[in-house]
């Protein structure tokens, strides 16, 4: 069953994802960390599904599809910004400010 440790693991994974988003400067890596966070949530869903029945399992499918859609659109956007700034380093993507 291991509900406790599973939730703890997903929490750890989630925080790693957040830390990644916070520290890294590359847009793609940032996006990967976000995907990691989503998968951490999937883990917790699965863990909790043991207790509350199959609702959690079904939720994972929704999350998967959403993550896929997001990935497609996100990468397209990163590609678009790359065409303009020839770099994905978030430090120097700050034309809009003030």
């Amino acid at each position, binding site marked *: 069953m291991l509900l406790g440790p599973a939730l703890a693991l997903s929490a750890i994974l989630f925080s790693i994802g957040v830390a990644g988003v916070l520290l890294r400067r590359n847009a793609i890596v940032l996006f990967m960390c976000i995907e990691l966070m989503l998968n951490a949530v999937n883990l917790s869903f699965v863990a909790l599904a043991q207790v509350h029945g199959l609702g959690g399992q079904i939720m994972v499918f929704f999350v998967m599809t959403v993550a896929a859609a997001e990935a497609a659109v*996100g990468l397209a956007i990163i590609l678009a910004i790359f065409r303009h700034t020839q770099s994905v380093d978030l430090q120097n993507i700050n034309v809009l400010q003030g």
Partner: protein
Amino acid sequence: MQTIDLATAGGATLALLPEVVLTGAALVVLLVLSWRHTTAEDSRLAGYLSLGGVGLSAVALAYLWTADLQPLGLAHMIAVDTFRYAAVAIILIATAATILLSLQYVERERLLAPEYYCLILLAATGMMYLAGATDLIVSFLGLEVMSVAVYVLVGFNRGSVFSAEAALKYFLIGAFASAFLLYGIALIYGATGTTNIMEIGARLGQGNIPVLGALGLGLLLIGFGFKVAAVPFHMWAPDVYDGAPTPITGFMATGVKAAGVIALTRILFDGFSHSIDLWQPVVAALAIASMVLGNLVALSQRSLKRMLAYSSIAHAGYLLTAIWTGSSLGAGATLLYILAYVLTTLATFGILAALGRGGERDVTLDTIAGLGARRPWLAFALSACMLSLLGFPGTLGFIGKWTILMAIVNQAHAALGIILVLTSLVSAGYYLPVIMSMYMKPASATSPEGKMSGAGIAVIVVTVGLLLVFGFWPGPVLGIATNSARVLSGAVPSVNALVR
């Protein structure tokens, strides 16, 4: 008073009629533009088609609203009540207006990809799901459908680096925030075993909320805090509003924010009505921060578009104070203020779109100097919008603020009301100079022509007209707002039998 069984396919489609119609319209537009997607006429055709779709959806909504359907048993996935109908109506208004404004804008800015309109329709559908959902999963899906569509729409102007950067920022932080939201849903699912809002409310009824549930609620607030652009989750808003094409900025400021606020209201009022003492201080703090920071930073903005971005953060603050009350009058106030805010913002961005060129980032107070003399009616419309945003009597904005204040006062301590009033006084500091430069400053040589298409003029006339008409005779719209709000279970047993 017909009853429909949500379990059956027929019942479900009937309940979801407006959304279904809109999705259908989106698919039809997609189909049509697969042949015709190069010339200006094609995009105009796509525009009119999508407009037709919105019209049909409105008809469906009208039917649903008048038919006054009652769901058999608990409404699992989507609410079938006037609160949702009102929300859908507002979303349809926003969508229609955005499409009408985009017709001219798209041609002028050479954004000749007709998928633009399809995305708008899809985003609108997502908003409807988000606003109407009684299940956290449906609201998450609605949120994501909307967000993905809007991410693309923000970056639609491939030619400008601003649009691309705005899209990127919006996408990154948006995805980041929805991850939090999802985690919240997971924890709440863990705490209560269900994702249906009404059941969550029932299950959390007895005793105080378990730790998982509290954490989940916190994460939910974070997710919606981002969507509503409340301070400290607002950092994306100014840049994204600034970079996006102006009609889309209008669409985001009105539709997206409206759907987010309504979803938050429903979840807090139905789901967490018993743990109000947990989320009320948080919402209050978010509201105060948004009002103060939004208004203050807007003071120092030179470009009109960026100023409106910060002012929309401030208005998110006003909406949050309405939600803070927790009473059904508060919910009514939220709905009314959203209507006022949506109408005014659409008109403002419509005028801004006409005045600017290439993303309107250069439209400042000096460029609109002397507009009062050259284009009296356009200047009058923008002045009316500014006064409505300021909450000046005679406009719907004032009625909205008056209702919010009534709701706050009902909670027996007016401190939040005084903060709201003082921050809106600060807002006079940046709304008035707009009126001032239009009427009281001489026209400069470079001031824009401000030519508007028929559709654009129609939007402005309708929205400003409604603003002023409802400003002087708020009776009907006020009645709808407060009655539809009473549908919510009403979190706080406050003396909210106020409204007859």
